[in-house]
């Protein structure tokens, strides 16, 4: 007898003395069910052990020992009772009901998660814009030959939205990051001018080609525009 069976036999013995816990009782009943499903009908099965123990206790009490199995007829009687007979319609309805609950919970979960993930357009984004500044400055700490992103503050003015490092009245400048490569002969100023010019050419093109009406024109500023006319 395996270890677990031995423990189970102990539980059965305890059950007969009325000393099992609720959990133990359920475990025993479950084992009986499993044995029945697998059609184990040897003396090794839980059911067999249970029957044997009863016979032992009966013989010890001097009662006549007889192996009568009432379980089959009791099962038939239970099946015959009205409450346990299943009408196909009600069975379908209750199944459908269960399915409906599962489906609606799933739908709520899907929609809820979607809405959680999506940015809430109604909320004030000032904070997020401010956060972005921090992100931007963090991202640009890195490789060699990097230009600082902001200017020195030349005016003691703080705009309302200035949550980050750019607290100046000057227009923002592009962050130019040189990929490490063998050195070439160029000046920062020329490179910045060239990149600004390229971005301006793009903004001009974009303003003409986009579907967003006049909004893209906001990206074009005077200083940049002046450089493109050269």
């Amino acid at each position: 007898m395996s270890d677990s069976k031995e423990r189970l036999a102990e539980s059965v013995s305890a059950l007969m003395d009325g000393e099992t816990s609720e959990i133990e009782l359920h475990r025993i009943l479950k084992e009986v069910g499993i044995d029945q499903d697998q059609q184990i009908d040897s003396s090794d099965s839980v059911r067999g052990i249970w029957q044997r123990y009863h016979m032992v206790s009966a013989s010890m009490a001097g009662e006549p020992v007889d192996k009568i199995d009432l379980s089959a007829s009791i099962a038939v009687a239970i099946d015959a009772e009205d409450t346990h007979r299943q009408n196909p319609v009600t069975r379908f309805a209750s199944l459908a009901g269960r399915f409906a609950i599962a489906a609606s919970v799933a739908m709520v979960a899907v929609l809820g998660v979607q809405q959680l993930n999506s940015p809430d357009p109604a909320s004030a984004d000032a904070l997020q814009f401010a956060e972005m500044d921090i992100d931007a400055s963090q991202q640009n700490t890195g490789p060699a030959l990097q230009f600082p992103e902001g200017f020195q503050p030349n005016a003691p003015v703080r705009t309302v939205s200035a949550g980050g490092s750019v607290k100046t009245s000057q227009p923002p400048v592009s962050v130019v990051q040189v990929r490490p490569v063998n050195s070439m002969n160029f000046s920062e100023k020329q490179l910045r001018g060239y990149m600004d010019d390229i971005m301006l050419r793009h903004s001009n093109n974009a303003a003409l080609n986009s579907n967003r009406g006049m909004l893209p024109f906001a990206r074009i500023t005077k200083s940049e525009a002046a450089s493109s006319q050269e």
Partner: protein
Amino acid sequence: MRLNHWCKNLRLAAFIAAIFAHGPLFAESVKSAYDLVRGTAKASKELNYRGVFTYEFRGTLRSIKVVHLVRDGQSYEHIVHMDGAGHEIVRRGDDVGCTRPAEMLLLGTEFAADNSPRLDDLYSFYIRGNARIAGRMAYMVEIRPKDKLRYGYVVAIDKLNGLMLQSMLISQSGKPLERFQYVDISFPGELDNIQIPEQLVNSQQAPGCLESSEAVDASASKWQPTWLPSGFVLSDIKIDSSTGDESWMYTDGLALFSVFIDSAEKSRRFPPVDAKLGTTVAVLSKVTVGEQHYAICVVGEIPDATARQIAASISPRASTIEGAVQAIK
């Protein structure tokens, strides 16, 4: 017993019905989110309006005053930057009949014979409720990309006339990168008295209107990209045959990027760089064909990784290489 069962199911049915009837999720989808976004192209082209909008990015705020007028099928635009140096643009806009590739893609019209994906294959559109922008009621629409190659948007669309009142660019992590938003806008009536200068009426609109639904011809180009993010279509190309400089513009209907190929002496000295201004990224890479140096620059409001991948994929056509080899001989 059975009655009890039915009662339970009835309650369930009521619960499910309550979920389906829940307002903003379904009730307003009468006009789909995609249709609303499509409508903005027409509205921005055909409406008369005057307004002030703000442009916000990285803690910076700009305000811009605009007037858009349509007279006799021609449109006129006046743009004044209200801050800083006060940059002003007065220009002839696109005629009402002018269609550009970006609009074709947005509308989902058959364009560029190849089977490029439609806009709703690239993005998902959701109505996210209502908002009041610039004193007008608007639908909030979220446009979420289905891949990682482009950004998403949250836009506010005027309920009455379909004009876009707000547009936010949203990063892949869901953070807003930039925001355009009208703070004040007014429609016709007072605009009827504005005099348009004769000179402007007789000026030409910018080239690039589509005459047919054919793809933009790129055969004159000496270069070609071997990889493009799905859905992007060439919408404009300029080739300067004297210098060999080329400028391309690609769009998927919402996002845009440009490719500049410069053989100019001035760009020769520069190393490859990555640059960023607000939401615009620029990736400059260098290519040498024969003895000629070229600077290839991809610029646009697209994720850095996408820009880098495009830049890396641009290569000279076979004929260009042969030409260069012969030049050396």
